[in-house]
């Protein structure tokens, strides 16, 4: 006989949490499908997908996200590696720095960026290209907590010191240690960080708005001011993008178990 007691409170809170999350989403989805009076249709989605500004924003944000991921990986993989290997005592300080984007409101950060880089000696807001450089650096900072934590978790799962020393004793220089030993063992961690980075950049509004760049975030905000059904469709598309990214993380994470990572 099964004597296991049912925890009704757990079920209650679980259902409440699901309703809290899914009900607004269902409402948005339902609303986005009712553009044609009296029938369910994908009209709002058709309008969004046929709008060249959507594709421009999507393309721009995708390119910026990919550059952000590359820059973040180039900065954080060697930095976190060095911290693990040489200065583990610096971890509290590094962790504090990486959560600053959560503490400082983005609007304050953007004004700081604009004030600093819209005047000499380093005037980056003069041309679209240099503004894009500025926006990428901004995105790198905003996505820093996610990338740092993903890479850090990956490093913790492997014996960084022993692997480094083993590779060195076999003749590897620092570049070879990173390229052939450390990074291949971090690929899942880097990919996880990259996908969260991607989702963050794709939905970012404040930086792109104030730096006047054609990103997806400002387009969504602008659409919300003038239209009713299309922003709902865009919100669902944005959700889908985020969930697709999370799904990909799950998929690739399954490929590498903790056993494979630690080698024990």
């Amino acid at each position: 006989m099964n004597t296991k007691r049912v925890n009704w409170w757990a079920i209650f809170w679980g259902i409440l949490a699901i309703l809290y999350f899914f009900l607004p989403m269902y409402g948005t989805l339902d609303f986005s499908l009712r553009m044609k009076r009296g029938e369910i249709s994908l009209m709002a989605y058709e309008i969004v997908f046929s709008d060249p500004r959507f594709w421009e924003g999507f393309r721009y944000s995708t390119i910026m996200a990919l550059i952000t991921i590359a820059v973040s990986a180039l900065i954080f993989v060697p930095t976190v590696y060095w911290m693990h290997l040489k200065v583990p005592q610096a971890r509290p300080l590094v962790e504090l720095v990486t959560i600053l984007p959560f503490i400082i409101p983005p609007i304050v950060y953007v004004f700081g960026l604009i004030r600093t880089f819209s005047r000499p000696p380093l005037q980056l807001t003069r041309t679209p290209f240099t503004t894009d450089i500025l926006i990428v650096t901004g995105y790198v900072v905003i996505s820093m907590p996610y990338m740092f934590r993903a890479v850090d978790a990956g490093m913790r799962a492997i014996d960084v010191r022993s692997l480094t020393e083993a590779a060195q004793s076999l003749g590897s220089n620092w570049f070879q240690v990173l390229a052939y030993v450390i990074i291949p063992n971090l690929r899942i961690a880097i990919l996880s960080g990259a996908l969260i980075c991607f989702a963050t950049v794709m939905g970012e509004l404040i930086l792109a708005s104030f730096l006047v760049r054609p990103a997806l975030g400002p387009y969504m905000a602008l659409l919300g001011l003038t239209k009713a059904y299309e922003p709902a469709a865009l919100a669902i598309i944005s959700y889908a993008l985020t969930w697709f990214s999370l799904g990909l993380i799950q998929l690739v994470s399954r490929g590498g178990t903790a056993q494979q990572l630690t080698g024990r």
Partner: protein
Amino acid sequence: MTHLELIHIHKSFGSTVAVEDFNLSVRQGEFVSFLGPSGCGKTTTLRMIAGFELPSSGTIMLDGKDLTYTPPNKRNVGMVFQSYALFPHMTVAQNVGYGLKIAGQSKSQIAARVEEMLSLIQMEAFANRYPHQLSGGQQQRVALARALAIRPKVLLLDEPLSALDAKIRLELRQEIRRIQQQLGITTVYVTHDQEEALSLSDRIVVMNQGKIEQIGTPTEIYNEPATEFVAQFVGYINLLPVKVVTPSEGVVRLGNQLIRAGRFGHLNDKPVRLAVRPEELKSGFAEGANNLSGRVESVTYLGSIIRIRMEVEGHLLTLDMFNERRFTVPKAGESLSVHFPIEACWLL
């Protein structure tokens, strides 16, 4: 001929002295073990040979060349780690061939050498497995093959058997010695396990608190310990406080019982201790030997050995006897006489 030489090596971490005035010459093909308790500086010394730590002062010479400040990847020194440190994303064959790939060898050369190394460790069938698909013992054998594949001048092993269970440890210990002798490679082995050091080594360096206590063959270390630390650390030993009676003849007194030591230095009025191994003591009385009598405190069965603790003149004395059926094992509380040869005891 000296192959590896450590000259006046000193290493400090801040105000903590890890290694102090370490001097050692290792011959080509010799197997030398660093033996000592945790924190005695043995691993630090090994890491200095590997290049992972820089000595605060002193020189490391290999084949007559100063290696002190050469980076680890330029030393051609093979290293085996306690944690195996196999590359998790590579197969056994890729792990073994990694160093050769870094050295720029051709695929055919790498394949041939990998095959040779896997045959050496008798793991040809495991070439395509990943480290997580191997047992601890198998992983360590692969780590050994990987370190040897690059034909290092010196092989360094940092407590390679510590993470393994007793049976595997024993098997792998014999395998390490077989491979070392087969290849004739100069080997430095770090361990805190005296049995490992005694069974594997040509010479043992016993270390304590960053200093060398004694360098010698396993027999010298066990039978003629130079210091009280070595005597106590390597094997079990009885140390009894005695009073000198005849300094010139090494005659001492334990309570009312006289003992003659086989080895003794210059004796003065300072307190001395008589050292004798438990296995040197035999029950019963013997003419011409040292004889002591006391009362049995406890009897412990250790399988092939029976350990008897007896009280002699207010001090505990341990004797080990083989668990042979013909012996009558004394019981706690009984009186017991023991004897041991004069040459089997010495004064510290």
